[in-house]
């Protein structure tokens, strides 16, 4: 097809931005239904306690509901992984609360403020139990039990075991470190929210929810409410950011659904910042003990790791409490080669909110660990960090490459990516500057390189046996009678521009103008089933499905067009918005008009399926695409105040063939901002009783415009051999690299002072504590 400037590879402006930027979008809190009432939840003030009694004031009866009123099943995630322990998560706590913020009762009132008044009038008698707050304490014998019948606090333990004895006995370089990453609160601009209403005509529960996974929410709701899935419709309106926070079935959704049916009027719950920060799911809290063995030249021989993930009190639906830790075990080796690998992981239960996968699921943590470990090896070997990496990265001529954990790296040139970022950051100039620094401000440079598995499918997830295993991704492509194109997809765009990129793919195939292509998503009644938007899968999976459906549609259009042109179907081509033979052409608009409005003009042999196609798609291999990137950070550390300032940041990213380079850059920049949050700012600490301490955004610090540098982004475009256009999933990558690159830069700056930071986030207090400790002779 001729290059129209709108197809694959073009930075066309985002179709959805017109309504977003003019404030004309419709988010969950914009929805108003007649008779709708607001919900507020009575939430546990304690981390661990038995509920003795719940007192509802007499004048609140009928407006306050507890577990005793609800006939719903708890949220439950089963997994096929051996040894996995199930945690029933009640939608309203029944006899025990297991974290601060757990819902105990729901209050219904005309306004949220009045619902909160009701909630304040409900009193709960508790017998407080000792809380288990730290994941390592949780694993110790005798720790208080989050789920008594388990006998311990471990959701799942996994083991990857190689024999390391020979390497242990002979490796010239041995590096031992412990690392820790903080518990974070995913903080999309828009929090969660749900509006539920019973549709009497369809006898159907209509649930609007700010979710990434409408179809999965429908399945989960049906299971909890005991409804046939046909009696449920889930609609995701405009969704203001997800990042994993909205990839979950919510207790609030179940409660709202039950209430809407019971009360006969619509109800809504709009999460506020306090609920988001103190009561709802957290992410990213890991602890590692790592021993790395290397040859004298810095070549990695073996990695021996024990990792614990603080999974919180419950296994959240659908991803389970174990995704994070099992992911750690399978991706800790990063983009590197090694001879042997051993890793034990524990998913520990604690009296904290459940952990959820956040952008870059586990990768920001493991990247931090392996990249700091490589820098430690470099220091022992007396080499520049990039030299050690170049000796260990999978080389381009071995692609595709099956790594030590059987990850199948599809394509790419990792060493070239690193060389480019090293050239961009000018390390010799930084070394020269460091040599002259004697004052309190110290400069450091740090690197990180990683790969990101995206769009992994059935073969990867089948072993998990969790409630959602992705299969074929489907898309519907259908012409409207006036020649427009509707694409119906089960994934959910929650800010990443999929209404544009999917339209670009359809345009690439059919050549219809972008403004005549409408992407319909976020509605279980209008779209084919999908596991939704997660795991950097949409560009590959939904993109592949749209391409497949559009190609099949093109065939049908071509056959009708050929008839109109009085040509043999093999003699015409579809593209650029027309069906063309060598001598003549007919517009696709005319083909659509003929099918819908002038059927008398159709050939007798016409495909009765018409101009509506549902097609399913899987890549040629479903083990995932592997985009990869190298990040380089230059920081200045104020060694008197412990402050870290990023003064330069360079990224080289390979996302395969880029569908829309501008959107890709947006993904990289946004992810990098979140990675900077992980590196320097974001942390939800808990006290010894399990009380969350950073309850507002004045305490829970998010990076803003002044904290995010103007990163320089360079692209490589190595096609994936397995996807429809060579594209790779890269939605998460930006968030993965910054903690490692920034921590390495800080450690590079502080190395002359005898300090090495191994815990995130790198706050002024942590830096000063380390510097003060280094001043005191051990």
């Amino acid at each position, binding site marked *: 097809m001729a290059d129209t400037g709108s197809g694959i590879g073009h930075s066309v402006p985002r179709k959805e931005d017109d309504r977003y930027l003019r404030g004309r979008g419709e988010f969950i809190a914009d929805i108003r239904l007649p008779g709708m009432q607001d919900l507020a939840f009575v939430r546990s003030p304690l981390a661990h306690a038995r509920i003795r009694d719940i007192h509802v004031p007499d004048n609140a009866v009928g407006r306050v509901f507890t577990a005793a009123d609800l006939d719903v099943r708890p949220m439950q995630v089963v997994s096929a992984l051996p040894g996995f322990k199930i945690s029933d998560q009640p939608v309203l706590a029944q006899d025990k609360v297991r974290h601060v913020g757990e819902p105990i009762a729901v209050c219904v009132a005309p*306004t949220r*403020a009045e619902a*909160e*008044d009701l909630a*304040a009038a409900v009193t709960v008698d508790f017998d407080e139990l000792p809380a288990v707050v730290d994941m390592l304490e949780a694993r110790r014998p005798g720790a208080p039990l989050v789920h008594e019948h388990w006998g311990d606090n471990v959701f799942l333990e996994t083991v990857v075991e190689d024999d390391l004895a020979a390497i242990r006995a002979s490796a010239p370089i041995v590096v031992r470190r412990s690392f820790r990453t903080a518990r974070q609160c995913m903080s999309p601009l828009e929090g969660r929210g749900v509006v539920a209403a019973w549709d009497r005509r369809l006898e159907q529960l209509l649930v609007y929810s700010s979710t990434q996974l409408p179809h999965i929410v429908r399945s989960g709701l049906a299971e909890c409410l005991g409804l046939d899935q046909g009696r449920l419709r889930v609609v995701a309106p405009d969704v203001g950011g997800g990042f994993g926070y909205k990839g979950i079935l919510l207790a609030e959704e179940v409660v709202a659904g039950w209430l809407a049916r019971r009360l006969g009027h619509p109800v809504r719950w709009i999460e506020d910042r306090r609920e988001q920060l103190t009561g709802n799911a957290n992410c990213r809290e890991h602890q590692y003990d790592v021993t790395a063995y290397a040859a004298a030249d810095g070549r990695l021989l073996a990695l021996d790791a024990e990792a614990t993930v603080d999974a919180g009190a419950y296994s959240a639906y659908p991803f389970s409490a174990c995704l994070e830790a099992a992911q750690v075990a399978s991706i800790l080796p990063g983009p590197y080669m090694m001879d042997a690998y051993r890793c034990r992981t524990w998913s520990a239960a604690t009296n904290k909110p459940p952990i959820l996968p956040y952008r870059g699921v586990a990768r920001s943590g493991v990247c931090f660990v392996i990249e700091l470990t490589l820098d430690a090896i470099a220091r022992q070997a007396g080499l520049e960090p990039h030299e050690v990496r170049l000796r260990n990265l999978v080389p381009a001529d071995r692609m595709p490459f099956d790594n030590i954990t059987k990850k199948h790296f599809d394509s790419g040139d990792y060493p070239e990516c690193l060389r480019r970022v090293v050239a961009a950051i000018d390390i010799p100039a930084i070394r020269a500057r460091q040599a002259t620094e004697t004052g309190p401000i110290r400069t450091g440079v740090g690197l990180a390189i990683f790969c990101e598995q995206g769009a992994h499918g059935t073969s990867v997830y089948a072993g998990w046996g969790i409630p959602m295993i992705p299969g074929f991704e489907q898309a519907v492509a259908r012409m409207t009678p006036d020649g427009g194109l509707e694409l119906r997809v089960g994934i959910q765009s929650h800010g990443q521009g999929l209404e544009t990129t999917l339209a670009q793919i359809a345009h690439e195939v059919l050549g219809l103008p972008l403004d005549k292509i409408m992407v319909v998503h976020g509605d279980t009644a209008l779209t084919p089933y999908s596991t939704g938007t997660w795991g950097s899968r949409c560009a590959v999976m939904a993109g592949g499905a749209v391409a497949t459906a559009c190609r099949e549609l093109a065939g049908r259009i071509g056959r009708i067009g050929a008839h109109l042109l009085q040509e043999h179907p093999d003699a015409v081509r579809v593209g650029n918005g027309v069906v063309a033979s060598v001598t003549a052409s007919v517009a696709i608009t005319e083909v659509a008009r003929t099918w819908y409005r002038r059927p008398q003009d159709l050939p007798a042999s016409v495909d009765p399926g018409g101009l509506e196609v549902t097609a399913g798609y899987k890549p040629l291999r479903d083990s995932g695409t592997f985009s990869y990137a190298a990040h380089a950070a230059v920081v200045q550390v104020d060694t*008197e105040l412990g402050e870290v300032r990023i003064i330069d940041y360079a990224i080289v990213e390979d996302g395969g063939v880029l569908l829309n380079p501008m959107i890709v850059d947006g993904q990289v920049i946004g992810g990098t901002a979140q990675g900077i949050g992980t590196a320097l700012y974001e942390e939800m600490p808990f006290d010894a009783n399990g009380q969350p301490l950073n309850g507002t955004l*004045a305490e829970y610090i998010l*990076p803003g415009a*002044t904290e995010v540098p103007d990163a320089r982004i360079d692209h490589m475009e190595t096609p994936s051999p397995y996807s429809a256009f060579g594209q790779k999933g890269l939605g998460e990558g930006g968030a993965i690299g910054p903690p490692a690159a920034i921590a390495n830069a800080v450690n590079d700056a502080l190395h002359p002072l005898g300090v090495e930071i191994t815990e995130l986030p790198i706050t*002024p207090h942590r830096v000063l504590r380390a510097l003060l400790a280094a001043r005191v002779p051990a």
Partner: protein
Amino acid sequence: MKAAAFDMVRPAALADAESLLAQPNSSALAGGQSLGPMLNLRLARPALLVPIAHLAVLREVSETASSVTIGACVTHATIADGGVPDIGLDVLARVAEGIAYRAVRTRGTIGGSLCHADPAADWVTVLTALGADALTSGGRAVPMREFIRGAFRTALTPGELLCAVRIPKLSPSVRWGYVKACRKPGEFAHAMAAVLVDLDVTRAVIGAIGGAPIVLEGAAVTHAPDLPGLDAIDAQMQRIILGRAMAQAGLQSADLV
């Protein structure tokens, strides 16, 4: 969260505000940049809210040969934008433009900030260092050092409003330093210090310490301050910030670190 129910009565004149605020559990509402979130979090639960930002008398600005008087409901943004006379060195505008974010500065007021008396507030430390007086509806002129009684506590009595602050002008030979440490621009400071060297005054004020600011006068300024209740790290941060503020004001700070 949403605020609990409250009554709101808009006074027509300062005297009305005074009588309304004499009622138990009443609270004045100026810019609402601190009180608003506290209402929503239900940390503040006044029965009666008395908005005062519209009272023209509280937004007056005047100037004499020796001082500038700024009405309590003048916003940080007005001060940052040069909307009040300069006391010297453009000190007030430079402080104001570093307060929180522009949106907060647009509504937040100098008097509201002082009456809220958050220890980390810029004006609490700066106006103490500048030797300003709080002028109240009771006709009192209370030195800032006495006006701020502690964290979130002031010398105002029930029914008494802060009407204005009177800030002495600086001499041509003044030296001034003001430094704060924040996790990011606009966030609450975790260490701050203001240093004034003018004619016979040498004064350092340490803020963001969880109570009323610490005031050091004269020779005491150049010695490492006693910082009770701070751990080693917080104490170091405060001493470093003080040292940097002193350096801005041209003072030696050899024994601070």
